[in-house]
């Protein structure tokens, strides 16, 4: 589209353009019409713009409003909407097994993780100096399961005592 740089504005007083439009449209009270007409008599710029804007009606009347698409259109559109809804439902049903499988997998993984964490925490215990020892460590180091080392030195010395210096 080529715009004509010569015709940026209507040429009328800017504060008056909206009222001039109302005057053309006939949406004006009698007193406003009198006031606008008085201005038009004394303002050649507004008068010229008003004349041009009024003349355009002769051109614009050539175009006719878009005709009604007819009584079948609403019915056809409803069918189109139903089809779109069905397509959407179908699309959802195609993916739904995968989606539910993904959710089940996620839920199982979540439960498993929770179990592992709970089990791990409950099986750990605190030594006197506050360090954690696992049960497997416990059994490997001490043959007597009832024996519990009371301090770090005892813990280091006990395997050496059992061997009595022999290999």
């Amino acid at each position, binding site marked *: *589209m080529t*715009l004509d740089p010569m*015709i940026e504005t209507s040429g009328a007083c800017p504060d008056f353009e909206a009222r001039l439009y109302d005057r053309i449209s006939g949406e004006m009270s009698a007193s406003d019409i009198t006031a606008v007409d008085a201005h038009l008599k004394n303002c050649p710029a507004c008068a010229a713009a008003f004349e041009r804007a009024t003349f355009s009606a*002769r*051109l614009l009347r*050539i175009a006719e409003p*878009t005709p*009604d*698409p007819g009584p079948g259109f609403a019915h056809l559109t*409803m069918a189109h909407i139903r089809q779109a809804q069905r397509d959407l439902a179908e699309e959802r049903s195609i993916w739904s097994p995968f989606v539910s499988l993904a959710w089940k997998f996620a839920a199982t993984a979540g439960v498993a993780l929770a179990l592992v964490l709970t089990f791990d925490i409950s099986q750990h215990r605190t030594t006197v100096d506050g360090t954690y020892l696992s049960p497997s460590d416990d059994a490997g180091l001490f043959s007597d399961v009832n024996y519990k080392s009371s301090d770090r030195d005892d813990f280091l010395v006990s395997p050496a005592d059992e061997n009595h210096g022999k290999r």
Partner: protein
Amino acid sequence: MPDVPKNVAATASALSIPVARSEKADIEHDLVRRAQSGEEAAFEELIRRHQQRVFGLVNGILRRRDDVEDVVQQVFLKVFVSLKRFDQRSAFSTWLYKISVNECWDYLRKRKVRPLTYEADLSEDQVSRLDGVASADKPPEDPSQRAEARDLLERMLERLPEEDQQLLMLKEVEGFSVQELAEMLNLNVNTVKVRLFRSRARLTEVYKRKLESNTSQPNTREKRG
């Protein structure tokens, strides 16, 4: 509502608060409510009531006849899908027109197309025929002459900024009110009036210049035989 002062009524109207609802609006309100509760027949009736105006609106913006029907159907599909979210605080038509305008912008953006444009300029012969139509007391009655006149007018409109063309088509051809245009385009009522006034003055200016250039170059007139 006779007790409501004029300015209060105007404010309420501007805020889309229903002051006095006509019988037609009551019927529409009821249709919307029934459609919201899933009654398809009610929605079909809403389509029937608004289809012509939505066609006019979409056609006024796109002016691509082949696509207008598809876009209008898409508008009604969107309205159907989001109908439950519509709270009826504004008129159904206001909401519908806003969706229609957005759908037109979406369409133009997605397809990366502009509203219908004519590459070729008007020939002198065409300007003369348009002059004949503009000077006549009534528009031509012959459908083919009318179609040609409309085609010529649209070529004149092409000389105006795109938004002005749309405003002119929607207001002066399709019959939307200034208030409706302001609401659907999120513009001030005064702005719409000023733009319409300027667009109309410009249209005549374009036309007169065409005529002048036509008459000032008589030797370049198309030869017919």
